[in-house]
């Protein structure tokens, strides 16, 4: 990262009110963008994160170009790919010109397309859940902080209540009930219902952290002079919240979001890992870990690519979060 001293433009962290030699009016957003572009780690992370999202979106395209799909059991249909114990015959987990990332043990599916589709499943769920969590968290946190009093008290206790729920256990306990409510006992549970249920659970039990954080921020902000001034001039609460408070909350919101998304990706993976959540044959990143952790004694290659992808993704996203925060608020730079 560049040090603040090398960034001549960064003079203040608030409105660019100080006129300099060539007077250019820049919004905080533009300023942030200029700072961000100079942060090499941030840019690299951003490229990686974008790459993951692209891969997720373009999974069917990749599968088509590559000529394999994630559900076909190549190893079972072609003799000679798996040995009698179900492991790939070729070295390095069956990596070959035909199967670039190798073959899945016992089922003999293609690891590359499994991974790409698995990322797609996990990212889709995590991204939607993150969005919902952040919106809910902001709404409830700011409301509680701004209104205070009884509203704050009850919302606070409600948050406490939800925080006391163990996420994974609740999921394990509630999903069968949900499924039996919506699905006929003679029909398969549709994958979209599983996805929606997962998102709902991640959402309902995931927004409290950000709400608490913002409530605290708003509590301190609302006593500041500029808010008081707005109130004196007769601004409506809605205007105060959106125009006075929210712009000052972007930093925590963005940082929380960038931390939450990889956390939810791992949470989703964790749920699949313990055997709930998404089931076969829908490809899933977390399930690949669960299997990989089992197979590594005999086929370590199988966990290599999903593991590497997950680490790269989580690290990149966290670094991106750091950089975005730094760009918004250079004072916090190390």
């Amino acid at each position, binding site marked *: 990262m560049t040090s603040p001293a090398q960034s001549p433009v960064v003079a203040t962290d608030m409105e660019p009110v100080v006129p300099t030699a060539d007077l250019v009016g820049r919004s905080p957003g533009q300023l942030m963008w200029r700072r961000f572009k100079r942060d090499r780690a941030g840019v690299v992370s951003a490229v990686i994160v974008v790459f993951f999202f692209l891969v997720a979106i373009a999974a069917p395209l990749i599968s088509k170009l590559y000529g394999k799909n994630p559900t076909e*059991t190549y190893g*079972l249909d072609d003799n000679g790919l*798996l*040995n*009698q*114990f*179900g*492991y*790939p*015959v*070729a*070295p*390095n*987990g*069956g990596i070959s010109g035909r199967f670039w990332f190798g073959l899945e*043990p*016992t*089922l003999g599916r293609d690891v590359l397309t499994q991974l790409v589709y698995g990322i797609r499943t996990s990212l889709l769920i995590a991204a939607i859940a993150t969005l919902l969590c952040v919106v809910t968290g902001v709404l409830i946190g700011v409301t509680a902080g701004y209104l205070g009093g009884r509203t704050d008290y009850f919302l606070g206790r409600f948050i406490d209540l939800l925080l006391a729920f163990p996420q994974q256990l609740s999921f394990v306990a509630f999903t*069968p009930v949900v499924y039996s409510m919506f699905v006929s*006992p*003679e*029909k*398969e*549970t549709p994958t979209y219902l599983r996805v929606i249920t997962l998102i709902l659970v991640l959402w309902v039990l995931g927004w409290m952290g950000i709400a608490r954080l913002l409530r605290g921020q708003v509590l301190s902000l609302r006593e500041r002079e500029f808010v008081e001034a707005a109130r004196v001039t007769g601004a409506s609460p809605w205007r105060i919240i959106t125009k006075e408070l929210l712009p000052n909350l972007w930093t925590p919101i963005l940082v929380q979001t960038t931390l939450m998304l990889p956390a939810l990706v*791992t949470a989703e*993976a*964790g749920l699949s*890992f*313990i*055997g*709930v959540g998404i*089931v*076969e*044959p829908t490809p899933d990143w*977390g399930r690949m*870990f*669960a*299997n*990989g*952790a*089992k*197979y*590594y*004694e*005999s*086929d*370590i*290659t*199988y*966990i*290599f690519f*999903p*593991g*590497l992808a*997950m*680490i790269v993704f*989580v690290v990149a996203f966290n670094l991106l979060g750091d950089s975005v925060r730094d760009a918004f608020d250079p004072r916090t730079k190390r």
Partner: protein
Amino acid sequence: MSRSVNRRRARYTAVALAAGALVLSACSSGGGGGGGGKQSAGPGEDKNVSSNYSLGNKDDSTGPAPQPAGAKKGGTVTVLQRDAFHHLDPGQIYYGDMLINQLLYNRSLTGYKIDEKGHVKVVGDLATDTGTSSDGGKTWKFTLKDGLKWQDGSPITAQDVRWGIERLYASFETDGPQYIQQWLSGEGTSYRKALPDGPYNGKHLPSSVLDTPDDKTVIFHFQKPHADAPFATAMPNVGAIKADKDTKQKYDNAPFADGPYKVGDYKVGKSLTFVRNENWDPRTDPLRNQFVDKFEISFGHQFTDSTRRLLADQGADKNGMSWTNAVAPEMVEKVLNDSSTKSRRFIELQPYLDVINFNMDRLKDIRVRKALAYAMPSGQIIQQIGGATAGQLATNLLSPSVDGYQPSDPFGKKAKPNGDPEKARALLKEAGKEGQEIVYAYANTDVQQKVSVVITQALERAGFKVQKKEIDSNVWENSIGEAKNKFDIYRTGWGADWPVASTVIEPLYDGRTISDGASNYAHLNDSSVNSEIDRISAIPDVKKAAPEWMKLADKILTDDVPAVPTYANLQFALWGSGLGGVKYHPVYGYADPTSVFVK
């Protein structure tokens, strides 16, 4: 033993941790390589043919037990087990791990004597022989041996055996086998009415049912003839219990021993130690030896954990073994490729047979059931459950471990282990049921999820539409046990309680037993099958009945198709290099600890 032990495997929780650790270790290894090892490294593959089973005589029933070569006294054996034992009370024991465990401290009227080649003889254990029958097989008389003693030195009498059987009528004795009680006092659970509180209120069964004329004689008066009584009396609950040591439910944690070992220290759910029972007399026991000083059993060892430790063969694990933990499927190759394990492992056929049941209340068209049977990819299913060392292709409804077994193959599974979609499709077409929806239920475990992938794929290739229902594995048995369940096909495993087919055909395919929780999972109710069952059950000679059972099993499979057999389970056991005398127990399907010694 009737329901096979749950094969759920380890689950891990540290996703990121595992991923991190593994990425650090490079990807250079891996690659299964070619064939791997050959199958059984044990002393022979013919252990389960029917000629290996016989009834022993009085001489066979006399102790001491034969000693393996090189056996000597002393030492401690470390036993690694995954699941804690639910019961030590012999009256409550039915599952493989506890059946093996009770061999050390509990004796039954009869028992299984197993020689080095795996031949099984039913011999007298507490009794002098396998019993003498009269009244056309309805009355069975057993005489107790001289010199039998409890762990406190007091003699074992016929009254102790009476107490042991009568307490099975008490309401808390729910988990054990019920053969003897039902034969004496009535089908189902109606036998409990004969002695509602067991012997605890001073009441006893009348001598017209269970007679103990003196200290040495026990006489059973069954309601019907039962030729296989010597097998039923080998179950762990048909033995002696000392009345003033009987603590009812608490007996589960502190059984009073009459075998070569007694409970030393028991931390429920954590560990269990057996120490020598000094009052056990080897001259009375044809089955058991008492070589080692101590067995130290600890629980909570997943299959990978126990396999890794036994393979490493270090420290106390050198004298380590497991009653029931198999070699983890993902480590099978590693173990087979390690030549040092050759003399300390076996791969043997268990009595458990896995089938996919067809719910005959819902799949009424036999052509649809036949199509399902043809389409079922048994070979691919075996690959998912652990491959060549975990299962052996099954072609008919009897396990090869059952007396009378013949390798008949009505659905051509040997030739096409992965199913015959063309034939299945043709049958469906003939029935006009193309695109037939099949509700396929499976227990939601990682292995069964993978099995569901291959089954769904195979059925869809044959022209079915599959609705998969994953069922929480904790409620799985109850869900499929419901007589009015809404599923079409589901897997079950069943092991014969003794190697006679009556313990398979009767509970699984007798239509008169259909009820919630009963084991006729396919709901087959064919009057000609039912009458055949009655006819063969009445044959007084077990050996003569065996081929008849096989014929009936084939008739059921070809004429009714209530299920398709998939595989017979194999047990792959590994133990430490410091142990000798470990052998296979073909009836219980696991390692036999009764002759184990420390080298």
